[in-house]
């Protein structure tokens, strides 16, 4: 079955230099955009958190904390779907990491508590679908969130 590419009703693209202080600029921008939809405030908070984790990972891992890299965040509003694409030209992630990221620790053992390694597990929980691909040196994570219950 041939399926055409859907055109969003509205779109804005954000670009930021890969640096932690800029991440909140992008996540707050997307939270602001979400107010155009019928999303509840707590769902907008979820999008903001999941997106922050994804962009933090680009800054920290794809660009290894080096400055100068560019992160592009595209925000697409379809009638029933919010899609966010996050693109970078840094180190690619092994997409298998996304399959089933775990949060494992033993409540009784303080030493086992996580100081990191929570990002991908959060992203998985906070979006309805996640895709990741690398093409021509460009990595793209696609985060999708349904705006309605189907």
């Amino acid at each position: 079955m041939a399926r055409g590419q859907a055109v969003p009703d509205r779109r804005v693209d954000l670009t930021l230099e890969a640096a932690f202080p800029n991440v909140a600029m992008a996540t707050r921008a997307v939270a602001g955009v979400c107010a155009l939809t019928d999303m509840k405030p707590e769902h907008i908070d979820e999008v903001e958190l999941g997106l922050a984790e994804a962009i933090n990972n680009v800054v920290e891992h794809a660009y290894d904390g080096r400055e100068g890299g560019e992160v592009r965040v595209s925000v697409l509003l379809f009638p029933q779907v919010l899609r966010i694409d996050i693109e970078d030209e840094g180190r690619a992630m092994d997409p298998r990491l996304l399959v089933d990221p775990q949060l494992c620790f033993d409540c009784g053992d303080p030493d086992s508590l996580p100081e990191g390694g929570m990002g991908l597990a959060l992203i998985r929980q906070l979006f309805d679908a996640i895709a990741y691909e690398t093409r021509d040196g460009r990595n793209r994570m696609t985060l999708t969130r349904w705006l309605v219950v189907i």
Partner: protein
Amino acid sequence: MIDSEARGGVTLARLTDKRLDAAAAPGFKTGISALIEGGADRIVLDLTAVSFVDSSGLGAIVSALKQLGSRGDLVLAGLQPPVRKLLQLTRLDRVFKTYDTAEDAVAALG
């Protein structure tokens, strides 16, 4: 960034910024670590002003808990809904005691 105050044997550490994210986590870590090295061992972290915490910020709080180890206690107060949600999603709500207000937390630890 951290306003701290002695309340009997309890240290009330109030975050003044709205966000404890990857940009703010290193500064927070330095500040809370200095408090612990300075002798604070029962700490109330007042997050009333904080509307957003990400996993880096939460990781920095966990690191303070680890630094205290078994000789102390660190509890959280004034969690806004997004912060409470993060604790649930990471299941660290099973690890941190939380209180509605800083006063409640100080009373409980005191």
